[in-house]
């Protein structure tokens, strides 16, 4: 059973698998990845290169009956293609199915074996609900997703793994690495750092404005304009059908050829309609090309500059710039990278088009897992945070769920609402100072008993992370019986390099404070509020908890403190009407002659 690496890219898709000490990439018969393009013609579905050759414009999305980069539509209810509404999940499933079919049908197919699942690469900014939809699409195509991994991390892992992993880890330990994937559709930037055996992302950015196809289209438009100007042809001149598609293809070819040549003739026969010389003929040189694409390159490098600036680093601090994607081979881009980072720090892998898929295949083979890159915290008070999910926590794989429950008390119930603020620190460090800035992630609110004293009503917060890497927070108030749910989709993950001796059991299960309570309880002693006392003192324990532990403690002959009795009774429903305590509708106590309520307003209770 094989777990494959699946690079489901914006423009191209590719399967890669590790065999022995190397990877095998399932490219097409011309050694090119399979375009993520689907064309719907009547009942016929055309996927891959054949569909891509029908494109006459760059840009992602729907062009007539062609869908380019269908994964961008994931999360939407439907996409209209020539008036027909189609599910994005189905469209993605068509691409996945085609890629699988191509891989199996190729001569290398016999080495693929039976596929049990895939490690699938995703863009950094792909949100949780899109990941969920992507999982559905893969399942529809008959492939289970074992694990998601971000594309830049996969590329870096593939690069490290292809070279000497240990040497790379030693060389770049705690150093800054910039990974950018400048492909046909998008430019994805990731600033990351290796911490021991973990790669942690610091900052991510991405844009569709400067993809390779935009370059091609820009070149094409520029050349058309130049030819029309040179030959005195009006801009309104009509062109033959598919002529632009052919010209786009020639422009792409010229762009590649000009990496090695000074000049390239862009020629398309029968291009213009209704003029003497119908052919498109232009001699493009490298200077002109660079002049045409300079604004796009500037735009791309501005994104890089912006990422570094936002993260608070200079290009000099970057120890490695790993450039992947087809555009990395463009001399102008490579030259600019060398100017910024120096030639020694810029690495352009030979297999730029396949390195992401190869990285995913290595991750699948090594069973490298995702880890939480930052703490997920609950704001308790000013500069006081409770870690809900600790940095380094392993993320669940296919079919797994990580969960934890936190028991809290409402500190101020006067407004009748308990508020949960979930945040994460900006820093990826394992030890984050309380005064470091935090990024707000989500808020939850639940109604509480406004009549209760502070620290009286218990609140519960369930944290759950599923295999789609979506964090779900579920807050409940136990007396007011209110609840709220929120999902957090943009968690930040790191990738852990596998190394058995370095597996830190402590980090395996580092879900918040309950773990500590669980470990201490195993010795057989009651350790609730253990942070408040260094020895067992039953009077420090909340009454309702103590009642569950030892009901005999509340025997009146032992004279338990009133506050503990009140805490215990607070969670007991009315024996007569069954309502919760402090429920204003419960008037049962008042009907008992000579009786007075045990609990009341905080001020009343203080007087008691």
């Amino acid at each position: 059973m094989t777990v494959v690496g699946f690079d489901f890219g914006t423009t191209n898709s590719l399967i890669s698998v590790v065999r022995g000490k190397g990877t095998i990439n399932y490219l097409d018969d011309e050694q090119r990845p399979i375009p993520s393009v689907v064309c719907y013609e009547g009942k016929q579905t055309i996927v891959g290169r054949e569909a891509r050759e029908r494109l006459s414009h760059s840009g992602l999305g729907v062009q007539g009956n062609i869908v380019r980069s269908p994964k961008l539509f994931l999360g939407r209810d439907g996409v209209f293609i020539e008036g027909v509404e189609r599910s994005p999940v189905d469209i993605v499933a068509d691409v996945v199915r085609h890629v699988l079919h191509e891989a199996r049908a190729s001569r290398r197919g016999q080495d693929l074996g039976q596929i049990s699942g895939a490690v699938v690469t995703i863009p950094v900014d792909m949100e949780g609900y899109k990941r969920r939809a992507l999982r559905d699409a893969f399942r529809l195509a008959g492939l289970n997703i074992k694990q998601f991994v971000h594309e830049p991390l996969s590329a870096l892992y593939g690069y490290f793994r292809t070279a000497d992993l240990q040497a790379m880890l030693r060389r770049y330990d705690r150093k800054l690495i910039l990974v950018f994937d400048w492909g046909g559709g998008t430019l994805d930037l990731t600033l990351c750092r290796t911490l021991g055996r973990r790669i942690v992302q610091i900052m991510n950015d991405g844009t569709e404005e400067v993809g390779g196809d935009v370059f091609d289209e820009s070149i094409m438009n520029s050349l058309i304009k130049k030819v029309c100007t040179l030959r005195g042809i009006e801009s309104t001149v009509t062109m033959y059908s598919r002529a632009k598609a052919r010209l786009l293809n020639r422009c792409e070819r010229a762009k590649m050829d000009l990496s090695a040549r000074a000049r390239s003739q862009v020629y398309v026969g029968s291009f213009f309609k209704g003029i003497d010389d119908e052919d498109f003929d232009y001699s493009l040189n490298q200077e002109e090309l660079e002049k045409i694409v300079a604004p796009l390159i500037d735009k791309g490098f501005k994104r890089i500059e912006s990422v570094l600036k936002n993260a608070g680093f200079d290009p000099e601090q970057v120890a490695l710039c790993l450039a992947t994607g087809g555009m990395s081979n463009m001399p102008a881009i490579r030259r600019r990278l060398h100017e910024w980072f120096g030639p020694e720090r810029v690495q352009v892998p030979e297999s730029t088009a396949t390195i992401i898929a190869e990285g995913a295949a290595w991750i699948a083979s090594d069973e490298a897992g995702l880890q939480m890159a930052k703490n997920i915290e609950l704001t308790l008070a000013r500069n006081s945070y409770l870690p809900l999910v600790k940095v380094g926590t392993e993320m669940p794989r296919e079919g797994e769920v990580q969960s934890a429950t936190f028991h809290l008390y409402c500190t101020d119930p006067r407004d009748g609402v308990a508020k949960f603020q979930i945040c994460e620190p900006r820093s990826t460090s394992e030890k984050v100072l309380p005064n470091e800035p935090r990024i707000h992630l989500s808020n939850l609110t639940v109604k509480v008993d406004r009549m209760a004293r502070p620290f009286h009503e218990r609140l519960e917060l369930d944290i759950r992370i599923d295999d789609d890497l979506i964090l779900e927070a579920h807050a409940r108030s136990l007396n007011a019986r209110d609840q709220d749910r929120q999902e957090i989709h943009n968690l930040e993950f790191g990738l852990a390099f596998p190394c058995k001796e370095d597996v830190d059991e402590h980090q395996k299960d580092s879900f918040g404070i309950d773990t500590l309570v669980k470990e201490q309880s195993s010795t057989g002693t009651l350790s609730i509020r253990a942070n408040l006392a260094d020895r067992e003192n039953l009077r420090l324990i909340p009454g309702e908890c103590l009642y569950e532990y030892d009901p005999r403690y509340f025997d009146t002959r032992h004279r338990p403190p009133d506050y503990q009795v009140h805490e215990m009774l607070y969670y007991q429903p009315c024996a007569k009407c069954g309502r919760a305590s402090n429920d204003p509708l419960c008037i049962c106590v008042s009907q008992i002659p000579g009786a007075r309520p045990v609990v009341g307003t905080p001020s009343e209770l203080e007087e008691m």
Partner: protein
Amino acid sequence: MLKRDSLTPPEGRKPDEVRETGKDSLVNTQEPQHGQKEKEKESPDADKEVRLRASKDGSKGSKQGKPQSLADLIRAIYTRKRLSLNLSQSDKRLIRSRPKLEPEECDRLLQLAISDKTLERTRDLMLLIMEFSDTPSVAKQLHEFSRNVLRRHPAFSSRSLAEILGNHPDGGNEDYAVRALTSQNFTSLPWPEETAALKKKKSQQCQVNALYCFLLWLKENKGVSLEWILSQLQSRVWGPLARHHRTDSAILKALMNTLDTTGVAVMFSVLEKKVADCNQQMEDARIAQEQAANRAKDLEVHLNRLMKQLDTAKDQLEVLSENIVNTKRSHENEMAHMRNDHETLKGRVLRCLREELLLLDEGLQALRRDPPKVHVMLDHAERVIDGLKREVNRIKGDN
């Protein structure tokens, strides 16, 4: 130890009188009275002669009529009531000289033997046969006579016993015959009508004597071993007697009071021999056990050595199997990568050729234009050449 007085009645008592016996034994298990025992004396040369006990004045009678022939001997045995018959060598010689027993005489003697209801005299006769082992003719006559006596006795009237005595080929085995004989109720034997049945004590005496006679007959005719006879006597006669002598005083009393010291001595020597045999067997067994233990130890050491060798061989096999699996996997991986390299090369060349072909095609189209666009063809041809050169260099580099 069997007491002599249990087999024959003591002096001063009638021959048919026997003491009260236990329910499950063939013999009386009570002690004889002291006065009676004192009167009995053992002959010092008992192994050489047969003493036929009779009355107190038996010695007188023997002097008066010594047996001159075999018939006289038999008659004397069955008729002399108070006679202790000692056969000297001259007597034996006389009997050997006249061993013939005429049929009429034999019939008369058989009639005479009918009176021996308890078979006491027949038992004496059968013991006497052994004295004539060196004279087969006499022994044969006596043996035939005693067999006829036994066959006429009602104790041997059952079919199985009759077949044994008649040397019938379908006769049962000896154990079965002895059991059949001793399990009969001797108080109700099928006597002829004119003959009275035996009383209880007599019947017990008859039962013991019948067993003795039968065992003697089996020894002579079937060649049963002495051990077997002794085991039968032990189980059916002596054992039940010894049951009542458990204390040291009882055992000593029984031994001191026994009349037949020769019998005790014989039995003791037999048992001594048996014990010696058993000891020898035990010693042999101990030596055999030691040898077996040593052998087992050696085998265990050998087995352990073999097990270690087996473990080593298994480990080696495991390593080899693992190596085979690894080699196979490595080979498969190598094959896969070779296939991949081949496909990569093929795909790259194919792509190059297609692209260059497209350029040439495009260039050719440009040449066919009017006017021909030679510069396009030149450019495309140059690019094709560059592309092909690049590919050739890559292939060379790959190699």
